[in-house]
């Protein structure tokens, strides 16, 4: 499967071995992002980097695991509750003027969102490339709520290939 190199800037310690070993100069860029047009996917940079900062990722992602309908349905109700928790915490955080309480409620709001995101990942929305993501965007575009950023949705439908 075709791969391409990506550099994690958080881990890169600028040891620069990747610059020496890359046969195409793809690793040497002004913004530190490896040039995917030049990269041939040989993997030499990833093998050479002493900081483990480069990973080789596939250019086409495999289909995600199929999800059972019962699992999807129960996880969706769980996510509904966690999103409600996020909302309530956020509203309470806005209202209070006690600094400690504000921080705690803000944390709980973000935390509830993280959990809801993870639940929906397991409910079938793991990959942007999956068909259900496309179908969801198309369904919304067919009858968008007022103010919906339709342009963004249309662009995404164009940019992201379907893998299943």
């Amino acid at each position, binding site marked *: 499967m075709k791969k391409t190199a990506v550099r994690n800037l958080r881990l890169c310690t600028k040891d620069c071995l990747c610059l020496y070993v890359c046969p195409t100069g793809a690793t040497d860029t002004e913004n530190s992002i490896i040039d995917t047009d030049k990269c041939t996917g040989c993997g030499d940079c990833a093998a050479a980097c002493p900081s483990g900062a480069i990973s080789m990722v596939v250019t086409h992602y495999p289909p995600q695991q199929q999800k059972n309908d019962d699992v999807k349905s129960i996880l969706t109700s769980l996510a509904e509750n966690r*999103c409600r928790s996020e909302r309530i915490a956020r509203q309470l955080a806005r209202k209070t003027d006690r600094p400690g309480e*504000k921080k705690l409620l803000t*944390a709980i709001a*973000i935390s509830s969102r993280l959990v809801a995101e993870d639940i929906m990942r397991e409910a079938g929305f793991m990959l942007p490339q999956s068909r259900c993501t496309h179908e969801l965007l198309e369904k919304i575009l067919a009858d968008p709520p007022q103010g919906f950023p339709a342009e963004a949705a249309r662009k995404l439908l164009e940019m992201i290939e379907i893998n299943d």
Partner: protein
Amino acid sequence: MKYVCTVCGHVYDEEAEKVPFSSLPPQWTCPRCGAEKAMFDPLEEKKERGNDGSTDESPEQGQGETKLSAGVLAAVFSNLARGCEKQYKAEEAELFAKIAAFYTSLSDDDDTDASPESLAALAQEDISSTYPAARKTAENKMDRGALRICTWGEKVTRIARSLLSQYRKGGEELLRESEVWLCTVCGFVYIGRKPPELCPVCKVPSWKFTNVEGGEM
């Protein structure tokens, strides 16, 4: 007798500690994750669980066509933004984030009756019924990914409920000279001067924690 923390699994062994669990002061908290005393269960009873209640098979009959609320759509799209970020697709991530932000503000009109009590009650509802039901379905369908989020999510929800209850009792004093830390991976919340070395729920290192400032939303 031993007692186990239902958030992080820390075991309190009365024999080793030389203090009976019941004699610990009410404000005592788990030395590992900060959960309050009430979050501990006796270790014995733990083995035999899930035998009572909630035996009904999947209560909702959604069959794929469930309508997602604005709040859940916000989570779906912010998660897809995260997915694009992980795949180093910055432009796509930004577009998904834009859609997520739209749904976040759309959902803000709901739940105008927000109160600390309703927040705690919701956590309680999920801990006592929604998570167990989801876990059961995940086990039946042998879906280990779903089982993982049931495990993490339930613990994260437990600590949130515990912190809310600790705040109700202790007020601002609870946060004096402490920061509020959030695990950016699983959502575990921790109050202390420094974040824990490892997240007690999902085990990521401390640099994955962020210091939460109030009012950034």
